């Protein structure tokens, strides 16, 4: 270990400490406060609001499951999809949900590699959100094939017919990308959970809790010889998840980009989709965390600083997305391709014009511009409003790309329009219910904040914090800026 002072220590020696960073956990909370507060959420009785919310979301989820059963038993004709609109709400929902998942992986993996310590307050719940979003996403490609019982054709298994999948198809890449993404996200999430499950095991008062948390904590005992391998595994899982998450939405975009349709056949899609995924995903993280933070009084752990930073990421990725929107129009004009030009005029003035004006223009381009102002980033209501706009806007964007690209075929005689049926609508609402129900179960039964990771960012966790001349420790996270 080196002996020269850290940036924070140096800052502590100046009178006003201009370089000291604001603390990541407010009110000088200690280790056991973090344990108590976060374990308490899991250990206390379920509050009444939880039962109310769970009943509502569970009922909606049941409607969704009913629609899925109806659609599987009756056929894809229960949806409004028909030629030329062969993909509609199903693939819109798929891209919407898988995109939401990406924010969780960005927080858990990419921000970890970039040493953004503030991620520790939000990574656990964001990763859980990723898993639930990917579960919802996986439903749609699964059932849209029509004969769900034939879905095993997608897997390269030795079979009696001697038929093998086409490995050069982007749809096949998608199968591998999404299933790998889900599996790796589960492994990463569970690895992160092990020390916290051990905390709950050691605090357990009932036999059943002791048993279950005991089993899932794998006998974790916080040994440094174990932490050494654990930290390496965590680092590598983060390193693996980083290119993985970028690949998943790139592969999703290949489903479109490798086709010949105007508005789909473009090279800008992979980065455009990845940025859009993170943009929409962060909005969903905030949508879930802002109420959870208020209900469980987690203001000292999820501070205004955290919300501010997430708002900045929404502004950044929103700018990428806006740039892509503008560039699509520019290329349509600059290419001189009549079909491409028509498709983009149609986007703005065609039958789906209001999807573009509200969804893409207002929700995705204009609303995040509020985040240029610190006052807006620090105002919970404004943040929540923008997040809701972005949630809706990103769904509209996928709808515009998919249905907008399909409903005007190359020959006007083949033109069509898409009208959703009640099955379309309730299947989508059902996945919202499944998603929120799973999230509610998660916050009841598992620690929603990574306790062992939040403890690391407390100043007293830094063994080099005590400077020799008796200054007060100012380390990772630093002291309140005055």
């Amino acid at each position, binding site marked *: 270990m080196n002996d020269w002072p850290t940036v924070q220590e140096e800052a502590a020696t100046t009178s006003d400490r201009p370089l000291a960073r604001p603390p990541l956990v407010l009110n000088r909370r200690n280790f056991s406060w973090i344990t108590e507060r976060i374990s308490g959420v899991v250990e206390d009785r379920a509050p009444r609001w939880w039962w109310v919310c769970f009943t509502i979301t569970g009922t909606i989820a049941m409607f969704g499951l009913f629609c899925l059963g109806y659609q599987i038993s009756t056929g894809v004709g229960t949806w409004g999809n028909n030629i030329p609109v062969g993909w509609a709400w199903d693939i819109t929902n798929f891209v919407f949900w898988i995109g939401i998942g990406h924010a969780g992986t960005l927080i858990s993996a990419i921000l970890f590699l970039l040493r953004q310590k503030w991620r520790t307050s939000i990574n656990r719940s964001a990763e859980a959100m990723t898993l639930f979003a990917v579960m919802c996403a996986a439903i749609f490609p699964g059932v849209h094939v029509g004969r769900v019982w034939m879905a095993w054709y997608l897997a390269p298994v030795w079979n009696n017919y001697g038929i093998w999948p086409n490995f*050069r198809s982007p749809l096949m890449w998608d199968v*591998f990308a999404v299933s790998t993404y889900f599996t*790796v996200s589960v492994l990463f999430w*569970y690895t992160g959970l092990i020390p916290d499950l051990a905390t709950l095991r050691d605090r357990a008062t009932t036999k059943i809790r002791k048993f279950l948390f005991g*089993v899932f904590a794998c006998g974790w005992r916080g*040994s*440094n010889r174990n932490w050494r391998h654990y930290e390496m595994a965590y680092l590598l899982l983060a390193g693996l998840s980083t290119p993985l998450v970028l690949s998943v939405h790139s592969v999703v975009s290949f489903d479109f980009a490798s086709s010949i349709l105007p508005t789909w056949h473009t090279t800008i899609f992979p980065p455009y989709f990845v940025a859009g995924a993170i943009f929409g995903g962060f909005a969903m993280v905030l949508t879930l965390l802002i109420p959870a933070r208020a209900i469980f009084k987690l203001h000292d752990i999820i501070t205004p600083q955290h919300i501010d930073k997430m708002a900045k990421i929404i502004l950044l990725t929103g700018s990428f997305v806006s740039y892509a929107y503008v560039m699509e129009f520019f290329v349509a004009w600059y290419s001189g391709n009549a079909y491409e030009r028509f498709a983009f005029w149609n986007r703005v003035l065609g039958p789906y014009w209001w999807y573009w004006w509200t969804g893409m223009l207002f929700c995705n381009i204009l609303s995040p511009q509020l985040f240029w102002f610190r006052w807006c980033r620090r105002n919970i209501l404004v943040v929540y409003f923008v997040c809701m706009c972005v949630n809706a806007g990103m769904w509209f964007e996928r709808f515009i790309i998919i249905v907008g690209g399909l409903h005007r075929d190359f020959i006007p005689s083949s033109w069509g329009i898409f009208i959703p049926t009640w099955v379309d609508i309730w299947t989508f609402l059902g996945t919202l219910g499944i998603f929120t129900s799973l999230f509610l179960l998660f916050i009841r039964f598992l620690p929603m904040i990574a306790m062992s990771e939040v403890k690391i960012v407390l100043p007293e966790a830094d063994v080099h914090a*005590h400077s020799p001349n008796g200054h007060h420790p100012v380390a990772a996270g630093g002291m309140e800026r005055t």
Partner: protein
Amino acid sequence: MRTPSGHEVYAMGAEYPSPAALYEAAKMVRDAGFKRWDVFSPFPIHGMDEAMGLGKSWLSAVVLAGGISGLLTAVLVEFGPSWGLYPLIVHGKPYDWRTVPAFFPIMFEMTVLFSAFAAFFAVLIMNGLPRPHHPIFNWERFKRVTNDGFFLVIEARDPRFTELEARELLERSGGQHITVVHED
């Protein structure tokens, strides 16, 4: 080694008030030449590996092996059917070296998948987990290790271990609640 009451001794442990105190103590125990000892904390302490004299974890080598096996599996699973068992001509695209890039995405995904499995199982196996019971859990205070407790434990099977020397060292390093932990 047994206690007067007939219990097999597993180790002697001490608790420390802070990560910094534990860090200093670990350096002392390392310098005293002990081999079978460990520190326990609710979170990984930055710099503790050096303080304990531990090198870099070789888990990364296992992950590399996992990644290579994933890549080779993908090559086999893709090229076996596509070039041998079931050549599928789509869009009139030929099967030769020019179409190899179209196989890359699945190779990449399988490499990541196998690497992640390797990392997950390696961290469990290298740490000897899952292990439902461990003698250290016989120490009542040790429950705090997952909350706010910082412990240093010297095992009795360390060749240098004598009760007197271990106790003296733990006391000198600022340890509190020094306890003999039983094996059973």
